[in-house]
């Protein structure tokens, strides 16, 4: 018998907060929801709302488990839904979300405009619109929408969105306050929203270069939802940066099996290379490279960023990195996109200089 002895796997009170359902149960129940909706969908028995809900659920599973195939499935179904119901605002919102996931921001904004014209619920459209504005680096415009949403109704979701925006735009003090406030608004038992909130908070601290605080929030996300792939992946990254390479490698191996995201083999290749395990690193590098090539071909807007990172590091091809970083900056003008381009440009210059020598 293999019982779960880790307290994180058995729910209960964590960090003095309200208890949430054990991560493994929450994931099983998410799967049960998806199974039920898919059964009905297969027989053509779901209305627009049900089909949009199924798309959301599968995309959520994709986010938690790091499953790009789920995102692709969601996008294909969202396209089909708008094809079947072109005049339904809920269908257009579903497609806007799916397109935004793959960084097709202009298309997504077009869908939201059309959904608004068709009478879709304005707060829902505004929230999606604001998230896209944030993703493309138009922080001031996003802030207007998000402040309005909080003024209208300060709940977990609206405050979390504002916190995330402040975090990304570098306003750490305000973000910290809002992250706390959002958590205090939470009145559910699903661990998923809290794990996502903690993950965003961790990303803020990592962007600030504060690895211990980032690690602490990633651990909190992991305690709530042990299967949360992005938290595991970033924990590995932080641990590697702190010199805990064995732990980082141990975290990444299972992710390379459970997830189809090339970020994990890419990270593994980099860490293995740094500790001198060159042969193993080469294998993971090849695997990551093949997968990035495949994904950049299918979803150039979405994977230019991470593929550029890969070619700058484990991939060791700064010219490809520069090409992708340029593509990424076309899609969104965020601070990270500018930094990536600058980094790639320096790497290419460095490579040319080395070639001249």
């Amino acid at each position, binding site marked *: 018998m293999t019982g779960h002895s880790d307290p994180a796997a058995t729910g209960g009170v964590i960090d003095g907060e309200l208890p949430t359902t054990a991560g493994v149960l929450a994931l099983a129940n998410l799967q049960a929801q998806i199974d039920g909706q898919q059964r009905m*969908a297969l027989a053509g028995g779901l209305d627009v709302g049900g089909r949009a809900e199924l798309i959301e659920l599968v995309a959520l599973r994709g986010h938690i488990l790091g499953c790009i195939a789920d995102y692709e499935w969601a996008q294909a179904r969202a396209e089909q839904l708008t094809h079947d119901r072109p005049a339904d605002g809920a269908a257009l919102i579903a497609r806007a979300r799916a397109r935004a996931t793959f960084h097709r921001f202009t298309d997504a904004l077009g869908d939201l405009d059309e959904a608004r014209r068709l009478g879709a619920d304005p707060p829902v459209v505004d929230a999606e619109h604001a998230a896209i504005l944030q993703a493309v680096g138009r922080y001031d415009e996003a802030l207007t929408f998000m402040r309005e949403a909080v003024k209208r109704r300060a709940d977990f979701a609206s405050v979390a969105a504002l916190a995330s925006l402040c975090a990304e735009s570098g306003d750490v003090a305000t973000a910290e306050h809002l992250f706390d406030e959002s958590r205090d608004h939470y009145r559910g038992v699903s661990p998923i929203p809290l794990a996502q909130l903690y993950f965003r908070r961790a990303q803020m601290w990592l962007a600030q270069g504060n690895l211990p605080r980032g690690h602490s929030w990633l651990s909190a996300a992991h305690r709530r939802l042990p299967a949360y792939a992005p938290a595991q992946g970033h924990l590995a990254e932080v641990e590697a940066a702190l010199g805990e390479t064995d732990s980082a490698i141990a975290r990444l191996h299972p992710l390379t099996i459970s997830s189809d995201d090339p970020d994990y083999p890419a990270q593994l290749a980099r860490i293995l290379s740094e500790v001198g395990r060159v042969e193993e690193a080469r294998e993971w590098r090849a695997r990551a490279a093949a997968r990035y090539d495949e994904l950049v071909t299918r979803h150039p807007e979405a994977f230019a960023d991470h593929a550029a990172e890969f070619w700058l590091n484990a991939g060791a091809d700064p010219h490809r990195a520069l090409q992708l970083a340029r593509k990424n900056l076309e899609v969104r003008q965020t601070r990270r996109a500018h930094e990536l381009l600058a980094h790639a440009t320096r790497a290419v210059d460095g490579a040319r200089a080395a070639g001249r020598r």
Partner: protein
Amino acid sequence: MSDHNSGPRALADPVVDITDVYAFPSPEQPGFLVLVLNVFPNAEPAALFSDAVDYRFRLRPVTIPRGTAPAFAVGEKEYTFSFRFAGPVEHQAGSPLAQEGTCTASTGQTASFRVNDEQGGKAHGLRAFAGRRMDPFFFDGVRAAQTIMTRQLAFVSPGDSRQYRQNVLSIVVELDIATTFGADAGPLFAVVGETMIPGPITVRLERFGRPLMKSVVLGAKDFDTVNRDLDIRDLYNQEDPYNLGPTYLGAYRARMNANLGFWDGLDHKTDWPPDAHGTHPLTELLLADFMVIDVSKPYAEDSYFEIERALLNGASHQTCGGRSLNDDVADTIVTTLVNAGNGARISDGVDQQAVRASRTFPYLVPPELNPPAKIELSLDKSG
């Protein structure tokens, strides 16, 4: 649907979404009361109970005051039956997750059980079961929605129940009435089911008193001229049914008066004339959202709302009231709301679930292994 998907929170996390509550004298063991609470609409095999939730029944003695408004007087004494579940266990690598649970009564008895074990767990005067079963609810909810949309009764025969052969996660407790309540209490009790986050700060997630309250009586916003923009259901779910808070009481009253008035008008005559303040005669009775059962009466299959109807008519009730698993409550409720029993019984065209509930513990029938897909029905105004 009865209380399936009853608000944004329930939609987000079906493990706390109470679909139905039932209360009936045991047909198997006279002298025992059966309480059933179902959660998780369309529960697939992977579905399990949350280990962070207290799934509980709350019962209070009630009496019928003479010569006052038609409402029950609720006693202070409270009996609870609380179900808690452990984290999951994987008995063998790759096998389905298994779960243990415990039912604890406020009187001190506890019964432990394994989820999905039909035998359940037993203690002195208490038997408890939890597991996946076929959803006993049946109702043509789509045509009820169509009725609200088109403002005309839209039920047809036969109708379609979206819960047909679907499954839920069920909780069942069977309790010895004499042991639990003693000789002095009863025979009338108010019953509610709740999902709570227990602990120093308790949070009520969902509650259920009477069927169809949130979907039929409170859900529609268009008739409410006071709070048309307010989705009232999550707020209502968080209220203590035995003591509604004052903050939103006016909003609940306004919504209820408006929606009850709509249903009454569907046969183009007024069977429930409002008072001078516009209050519908059922509003105060239904605001006290709990089911009433007489534990001294024997099991009856179609007795839902009989005690309330007797109260409204100033008569003595004849049955146990409460709600059995096979009771066609939807017909009772729609008929009551539309014609107050002054006309023919209105049918939604669905009279029972695919398999009738059993007369032996745990009463709900085993889960449907191949649930059918839902039928997508048109909601356009042409009907």
